[in-house]
């Protein structure tokens, strides 16, 4: 049964128990604030349980150099963040930063990737932009013991890329949150937020919760919660599929964008992108397409059994860059939305949380507001 939470009062109420809410909450707790996470049940869209697990840098931030910096910052903070989670919770989130590859099949993909990465570089992401192109031979040297498919002609490589076990990450953040004195309130679906003097009453299915500040980190829930609070952010669901193979001996020493091998030996295969509304069911043709490309890339993968597949719905903004915004009409109410909750977990906990706590916004946030969407609407 939902815990009765009438007359509960906090400094910050964080709506959403996925990747973003708990990460921010850890940083808020570290500032000595009283924080609650308002979550729903298991019957809602759980994007944070469908992640692939990349901590990714290369290719992020097309059209937005600030996002390039922000992603790099998170990758840089990750080792210490993961170590602290392990120290306090005993949960090893399996973070590793061995660099990452995006393999390119055929001249057309290479040309497209070179153009794309080149544009990010020219847009200003080029400051220390650690992404380089390597040929097939160099790929083979990086992946000893792996037989590449005939179509693989090269890759883009970044030493900043890495990966993590996203489910352990989620568990570790939740464990640490409660350990550090945070109040986790499941079955507190939020229907709205009302101003009450200098604070806000968050209206939930289990009664109101009072807080001086409110953070909407509710994934797709932002679509309903945001507009009445001056945070009309045009996010949309974009479906992605993931396949998991049976466990094998370690063969992939680094994540390869659409492929990564877990610490336990499974190989995860991704990643698709479909416009399917809120339908998160698995599409067989899409799964077959992912498996086919995996076989073209690493022919030996054709011998492996697929043991699971699933689909999840990314929280996508029109420019694929994150939103960190405080409401103009409702000061003290914030919206944070991104489809990169795993990559950004460290920087959310270590940096973004301080902004919500009252520190000046990080430089990057000049680009992450909601105004940019108004401009995009006007220009269309």
């Amino acid at each position, binding site marked *: 049964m939902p815990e009765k939470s009438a007359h509960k009062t906090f400094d910050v109420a964080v709506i959403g128990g996925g990747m973003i809410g708990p990460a921010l909450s850890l940083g808020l707790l570290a500032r000595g604030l009283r924080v609650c996470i308002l979550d729903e049940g298991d019957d809602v869209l759980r994007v944070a349980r469908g992640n692939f697990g990349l901590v990714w840098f290369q290719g992020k931030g097309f059209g937005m150099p600030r996002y390039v910096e922000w992603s790099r910052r998170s990758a840089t903070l990750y080792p210490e963040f993961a170590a602290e989670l392990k120290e306090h919770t005993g949960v090893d989130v399996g973070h590793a930063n061995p660099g990452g590859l995006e393999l390119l099949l055929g001249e057309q993909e290479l040309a497209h990737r070179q153009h794309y990465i080149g544009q990010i570089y020219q847009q200003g992401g080029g400051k220390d932009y650690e992404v380089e192109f390597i040929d097939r031979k160099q790929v083979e040297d990086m992946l000893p*013991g*792996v*037989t590449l498919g005939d179509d693989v002609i090269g890759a883009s490589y970044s030493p900043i890329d890495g990966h993590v076990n996203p489910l352990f990450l989620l568990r570790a953040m939740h464990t640490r949150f409660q350990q550090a004195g945070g109040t986790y309130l499941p079955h507190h679906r939020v229907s709205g937020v009302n101003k009450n003097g200098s604070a806000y009453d968050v209206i939930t299915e289990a009664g109101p919760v009072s807080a001086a500040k409110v953070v909407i980190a509710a994934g797709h829930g932002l679509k309903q919660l945001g507009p009445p609070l001056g945070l009309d952010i045009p996010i949309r669901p974009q479906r992605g599929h993931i396949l998991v193979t*049976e*466990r*094998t*001996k370690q*063969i992939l020493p680094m994540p390869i964008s659409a492929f990564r091998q877990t610490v*336990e*030996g499974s*190989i995860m295969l991704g990643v698709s992108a479909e416009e399917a509304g809120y339908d998160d069911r698995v599409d067989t043709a899409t799964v077959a397409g992912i498996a086919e490309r995996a076989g073209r890339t690493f022919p*030996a*993968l054709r*011998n*492996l*059994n697929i043991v699971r597949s699933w689909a999840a719905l990314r929280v996508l903004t029109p420019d694929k860059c994150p939103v960190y915004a405080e409401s103009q009409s409702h000061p003290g109410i914030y919206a944070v939305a991104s489809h990169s909750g795993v990559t950004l977990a460290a920087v959310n906990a270590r940096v973004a949380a301080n902004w919500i706590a009252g520190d000046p916004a990080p430089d990057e946030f000049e680009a992450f507001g909601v105004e940019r969407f108004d401009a995009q609407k006007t220009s269309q």
Partner: protein
Amino acid sequence: MLKRRHSDAAVVQISIDGEAVEARDGESVAAAVLAYAGEATRTTPVSGAPRAPYCLMGVCFECLMEIDGVPNRQACMIRVSDGMSIRRQQGARALEGDA
């Protein structure tokens, strides 16, 4: 130890870890290996814990073995056949070849 009950079924020649073994027509690979050596038939990929066939009906995946060169096959769901080569697995399978 496990013993094979009296069977009139024909003898089938198989090999287990390279050793020639007589099995009986109609029995599963899991049954044949248990009759040959009633002990662990694999170790797990992560912790290396010993495992043996358990449910014998295709559900628990504890009986995984390499059969005719293909690893991670469910030994309880496959019948022995003449000339079949069976290997018990130690830890995770290899992805390529016999690495």
